[in-house]
């Protein structure tokens, strides 16, 4: 399963005027892989992610997502990917079912199909009793799980998650990762950014971006070995800021 390439990036460059946001990126992401995309604020993660989602064009480079060309087939790409942003995109004044139906409609699914999928997801999320609750009245953790499910509504091949777990309690954060593990187990490719370094350990492979470049890309285990670190937090600091003193000087 994990030798089939779902995302292929060759020599990706993105410039904004003189500023190089993505400086010659090269990587592949495999089917069913949990691919962690890390980097300091401003390292170029969001820029690359927006390009892979077909929301922005690269300055140069060859890219395919779900087998489709990023320049000519963006509409096909959008049909085959799901995207969850850190701000979510649920409508506060619609209820749970209405939000699901809206997204099903946007993705062009039939009414019958939407109805079935809504029930399936409500059951899976254990939200059947709250089906008519407005999004505005839901706890943050519920919104996150729901936003993930909505991004998965049309059963995409790849799902992009941009800092999906910020701010929730540690149990809810782990329940969210259960959903990610399950999706990957079902063959869906998960592309995820996070600031929680323990979550980097849950990924099959991890990329660390520094100043627009990819300075590290490997499994968490091999990265820790290479940088002689015991945690991904240490790896991150050594890669992102080699001159940084780890000791607390007090």
């Amino acid at each position, binding site marked *: 399963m994990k030798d089939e390439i779902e995302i292929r990036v060759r020599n990706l460059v993105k410039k904004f005027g003189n500023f190089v946001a993505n400086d010659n990126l090269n990587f592949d992401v495999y089917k069913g892989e949990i691919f962690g995309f890390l980097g300091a604020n401003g390292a170029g993660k969001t820029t690359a992610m927006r390009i892979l989602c077909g929301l922005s064009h690269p300055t140069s480079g060859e890219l395919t997502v779900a087998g489709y060309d990023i320049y000519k087939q963006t509409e096909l790409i959008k049909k085959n990917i799901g995207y969850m942003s850190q701000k979510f995109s649920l409508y506060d004044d619609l209820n749970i079912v209405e939000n699901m139906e809206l997204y099903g409609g946007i993705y062009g699914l039939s009414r019958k199909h939407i109805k079935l999928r809504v029930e399936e997801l409500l059951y899976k999320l254990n939200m059947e009793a709250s089906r008519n609750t407005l999004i505005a009245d839901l706890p943050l953790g519920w919104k996150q799980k729901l936003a993930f499910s909505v991004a998965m509504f049309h059963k995409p091949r790849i799902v992009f998650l941009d800092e999906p777990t910020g701010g929730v*309690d*540690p149990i809810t954060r782990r329940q969210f990762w259960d959903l990610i593990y*399950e999706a990957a187990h079902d063959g869906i490719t998960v592309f995820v950014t996070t600031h929680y370094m323990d979550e980097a350990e849950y990924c099959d492979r991890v990329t660390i971006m520094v100043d627009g470049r990819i300075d590290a890309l490997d499994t968490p285990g091999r990265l820790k070995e290479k940088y002689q670190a015991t945690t991904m937090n240490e790896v991150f600091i050594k890669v992102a800021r080699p001159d940084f003193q780890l000791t607390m000087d007090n």
Partner: protein
Amino acid sequence: MIDIQNLSKRYGEVQAIKSISLEVKANELFGLIGPDGAGKTTLFRILTTLLIADSGTASLDGMDPVLDYKKIREMIGYMPGRFSLYQDLSVEENLNFFATVFDTTIEENYDLIADIYKQIEPFKKRIAGKLSGGMKQKLALSCALIHKPKILILDEPTTGVDAVSRMEFWQMLKRLQQKGITILVSTPYMDEASLCDRVALIQNGEILTVDTPQNITHGFPKKLWAINAANKYQLINDLRSHPKTATVYPFGEFVHVTAKNNELEINEIISYLESKGNQGVFSEEIVATIEDCFMELMNTSINN
């Protein structure tokens, strides 16, 4: 330095904080640790005189946030969770503005902020709205310090900031503490607890526990095991389906496991995992982290 007794605040149906009591000692670096919606901001807004509690009392260096609000405002530095400086003023103009409001000058208290402000001084003509996240954070801290406060109250200063900038920020806090300032800081990142002298864990408007990070982790009431295997997804599912496991949580590279009634023979678990086909099973008994303790306390408070 800060004394909080039975403080409560309700917004309509929502009880934001429920009879919270806490003490922060002079020159302590005290952490308030909990997720969004736990009540951290409400508590800070009451202490900083921006919100009035429904019941209970608070005092900051002997002063009451309602009666002595003007004096408290002069004595504390407050960095709210949302960036609240003037986006269309430059770095230098923002700092000058805050200095003037507090009837002082940048020069007068420069030694206190020098360490932090030097890092953004090369950009002092840039407008605040065009700064990166890490630089905004340093400017906001400089502005909160410019009148030399006795108490510094910081609401989630490291949220959304990358791991390196978070480390740098905590180093700055340690140095401010050495200059005699009492610091009360909130964070949703459990791993930052170990950088505080004492912490309060807060959830749903209630304090779960208050102690030193070390006492909290050593007080974990159960045996805790870290287990690893080649296929994490299978490992988690197998552990959860074992009748004797109580909690099974992924924790970085490992899965942390506790047993029901604390009666788990680890050898039994290992042979069970191997019989299910798990490869490379590794396990060791470990000391809990703050996050383990937080989840344990959450489960206890839910069951009560």
